[in-house]
């Protein structure tokens, strides 16, 4: 528990701090999915499963080996990346809907496995995980994630991923080995899901396989799609809106999925490419800074 958290607790309702922490965790997971679905164009319905690999991995390493928290977190991320490679190689040969179905199946299989393993506590769940996650840790990692993904997206590797999304056959004609790049993107995206999972485990101190089911994967996909495929600011905005809206509006959780449906329909009508579809992080930053310096508002577009 960091000092910042204690300090904030004096002014802000601890419940809101918890919400902000969950938001940060979802941001990291959603940014991982942004790389897979938004940048590389590969549909994944199993992202929460990679979160669960990181969550159980980090928690079990912490409980059994008693290593420093950040090491556990990193190990959880790497385990998730490894799972990404294992799932990626066979399933990345599939395209579009078929890939979606394969990742959906993988997510459900993993949930059932965690539900039945002795070491993960089975259906009772895994309890007694120390609370090590703090607001500061989460948001430092959010910033690192945004930085890393922004750099990655604008690198040679990242441009190859975009080329694959735009036209896989043309990318192959240019000599880009699309299978390797897709698996690479899948592994990196899963790594961030795993980090998010580890943070989640050490925040809630209790893991239940049901936390990482299809609904959670679908939620993450909604975050990315609502914000705008391929855009980091879009993913951040989509995640923030969909995470905070239910809290702000005090809707009960049963209406959450209905609200998602409604928001998606509204989005498809008015902003078919997502709220910030195609908006690049640096261009956005430059535009905001530029308009402020000139003291005039530039129209968005």
């Amino acid at each position: 528990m960091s000092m910042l958290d204690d300090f904030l607790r004096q002014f802000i309702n601890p419940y809101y701090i918890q919400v902000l922490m969950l938001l940060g965790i979802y941001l990291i997971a959603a940014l991982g999915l942004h790389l897979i679905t938004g940048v590389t164009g590969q549909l994944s319905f199993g992202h929460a499963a990679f979160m669960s690999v990181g969550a159980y991995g980090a928690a079990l390493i912490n409980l059994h080996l008693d290593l420093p928290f950040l090491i556990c977190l990193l190990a959880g991320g790497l385990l998730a990346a490894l799972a990404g490679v294992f799932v990626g190689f066979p399933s990345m040969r599939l395209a579009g809907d078929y890939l979606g179905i394969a990742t959906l199946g993988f997510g459900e299989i993993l949930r059932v496995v965690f539900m039945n393993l002795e070491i993960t506590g089975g259906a009772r769940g895994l309890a007694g995980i120390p609370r090590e996650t703090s607001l500061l840790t989460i948001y430092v990692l959010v910033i690192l994630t945004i930085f890393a993904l922004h750099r990655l997206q604008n690198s040679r590797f990242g441009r190859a991923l975009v080329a694959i999304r735009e036209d896989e056959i043309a990318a192959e004609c240019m000599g880009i080995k699309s299978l390797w790049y897709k698996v690479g993107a899948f592994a990196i995206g899963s790594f961030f899901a795993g980090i998010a999972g580890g943070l989640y485990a050490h925040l809630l101190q209790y893991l239940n396989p049901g936390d990482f089911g299809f609904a959670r994967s679908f939620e993450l996909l909604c975050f990315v799609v609502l914000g705008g495929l391929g855009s980091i600011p879009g993913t951040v905005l989509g995640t923030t809106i969909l995470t905070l809206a239910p809290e702000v509006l005090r809707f009960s959780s049963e209406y959450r999925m209905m609200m998602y449906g409604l928001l998606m329909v509204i989005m498809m009508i008015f902003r078919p490419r997502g709220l910030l579809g195609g908006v690049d992080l640096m261009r956005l930053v430059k535009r905001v800074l530029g308009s402020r310096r000139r003291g005039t508002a530039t129209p968005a577009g």
Partner: protein
Amino acid sequence: MLLQLEGISVHYGAIEALNDLSLTVEKGEIVALIGANGAGKSTTLWTISGLVRPRKGRIIFDGKEITRMPPNRIVSLGIGHVPEGRRVFATMTVQENLEMGAYVTKGGAAMREAMRRVFNRFPRLEERKNQLAGTLSGGEQQMLAIGRALMSRPKLLLMDEPSMGLAPMLVREIFAIIKELNEQGTTILLVEQNAHMALSIARRGYVLETGSITLSGPASELAGNPEVRRAYLGA
């Protein structure tokens, strides 16, 4: 001999796409590969580029066997591929598309030189270098697809249906470009449904029917062959 295919057979699952196909391309030639839809023309080009693995046969390019090489090695050895239907990267700019064409050469001075040459040949692409490729016209997209393939400085250019979906005037323009590229030293293997245009600029031609070569010879001879005229030239 720049390119030689020997007894190539390709299967998609149980379906045989190419059966014992052999052809050669000499340095400096334009060779036309004509045939109906589904004859295996695109498959032939994909096999040469390494996107499809042949079950049998050998492919020799510039004295090296490339039969089982991965596509990136084949591109860096000097084979450029202009895929059917242009397939530009729509949300990337013209310049970014060209950079992707030089992907295997890893950028640097060589890439800038290649881009300068492409812009010299296609001034219209330079005018539009910051425009998104998806917003170009069909003819411009075809020029971009050709320019992109030229970015890797290929010795052999594989062109798949460059006239597809273009207005007759643009078709003539594209064919003039192909001829010019060839005169400047690029060897071209041209796959076309527009047999008339293809045979008019090619030196030699092959006719492909359901995965096998059924006729071959000098382009002028093929253009005069009554069977070819009936089946592919609509005469």
